[in-house]
């Protein structure tokens, strides 16, 4: 075997962390373990969970929801998240909300934002090639060595199978759907569970925004979601309807891997 003719691959490490009610998977260079940045990213996610979990009675979000504290008394990141939620709400014409059940719960924004920040922590420590996947929402930094990252999009109708593969470099890929937890996304405009889509994927530079846009577009249903995602700059979308039909925005094809 002419093993030596291959370029050397950087040694890599995979890590899976149970946090925020899901599992966050890391694919990082070994240096991220050695310089402590992987630990920092993991600690950050647990901190976010403590501050933002609506399931912890003592979290800032729970205390804020029950009006026991003001925003000013919370961690400064809470105000940052609130502002971002208001921005996406505006951007989506009200299809994104930080109070889906009538009660303050910014979870729809927090997870993507926290994952993107975790990826930033690794970047700041010097990594130029890593990937963080929070329960199915992915932030890619750089590529996997010289090649782009390859992100499989789950087929909502066939568990364990892929609908297609997209390539991503310095890009985020977020998918909203009913395959894992049922009809949990509310259409806040109509005040009932979102319907018409089985899965909707948004690719864009930032996971915080791509994830929130995927949630908003899913709530819109197939027709409006297509029109809206087509209008978004720097973002592309791919969707599969409950009838099994697929559509994509005009620029999405450059993400699709054909090899």
């Amino acid at each position, binding site marked *: 075997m002419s093993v030596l003719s291959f370029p050397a691959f950087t040694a890599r490490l995979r890590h899976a962390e149970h946090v925020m009610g899901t599992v966050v*998977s890391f*694919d990082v260079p070994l240096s991220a373990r050695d310089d402590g940045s992987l630990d920092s990213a993991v600690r950050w996610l647990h901190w976010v969970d403590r501050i933002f979990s609506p399931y912890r009675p003592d979290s800032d979000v729970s205390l804020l929801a029950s009006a026991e504290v003001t925003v000013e008394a919370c961690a400064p990141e809470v105000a940052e998240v609130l502002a971002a939620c208001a921005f996406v709400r505006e951007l989506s014409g009200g299809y994104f909300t930080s109070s889906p059940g009538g009660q303050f719960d910014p979870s729809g924004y927090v997870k993507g934002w926290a994952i993107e920040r975790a990826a930033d922590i690794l970047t700041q420590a010097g990594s130029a090639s890593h990937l963080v996947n929070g329960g199915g929402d992915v932030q890619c930094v750089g590529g996997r060595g010289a090649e782009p990252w*390859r*992100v*499989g999009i789950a087929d909502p109708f066939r568990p*364990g199978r892929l609908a297609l593969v997209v390539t991503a470099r310095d890009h985020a890929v977020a998918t909203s759907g009913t395959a894992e937890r049922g009809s949990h996304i509310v259409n806040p405009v109509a005040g009932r569970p979102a319907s018409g889509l089985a899965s909707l*994927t948004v690719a864009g530079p930032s996971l915080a925004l791509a994830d929130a846009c995927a949630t908003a577009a899913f709530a819109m249903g197939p027709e409006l979601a297509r029109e809206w995602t087509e209008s978004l700059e720097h973002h592309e979308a791919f969707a599969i309807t409950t009838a099994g039909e697929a559509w994509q925005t005009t620029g999405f094809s450059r993400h699709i891997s054909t090899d």
Partner: protein
Amino acid sequence: MRRVILAVTATVAGLVALLSFKTHSPSAERTVATPQQPPSLPSGERAITGNVADTAYGPVQVQLVMKSTRIVTVNILEQPSSTEHDLQLGQLAFPRLIGETIAAQSARIDTVSGATYTSGGYIKSLQSALDNGV
């Protein structure tokens, strides 16, 4: 690199496994097919020739044609051919194994995007398999 070695190993192992299923009548004269020279390669592609693997039914040698780190095709340079059965089986087995090798790596992914799973749902997920190096 590890993937490539695994792919070669899997191809040869799969081949040996398939050959093992047949009832083989050893013949005294065991001829070896003349190694075929593959056509010259398009730019960006390169060929990696494996060592000759001695199987119970005769020598097997495969060659991978690579583009970057991906397998484009697999050439069989040497295969057991001492009986008519060897040749027939080779005609059936090789295309299937080559197809599986290429299909398996063309679906190569680093991660999976999908509806958010819970900690419990993760266990059954494709991402969990990837994290465990499957």
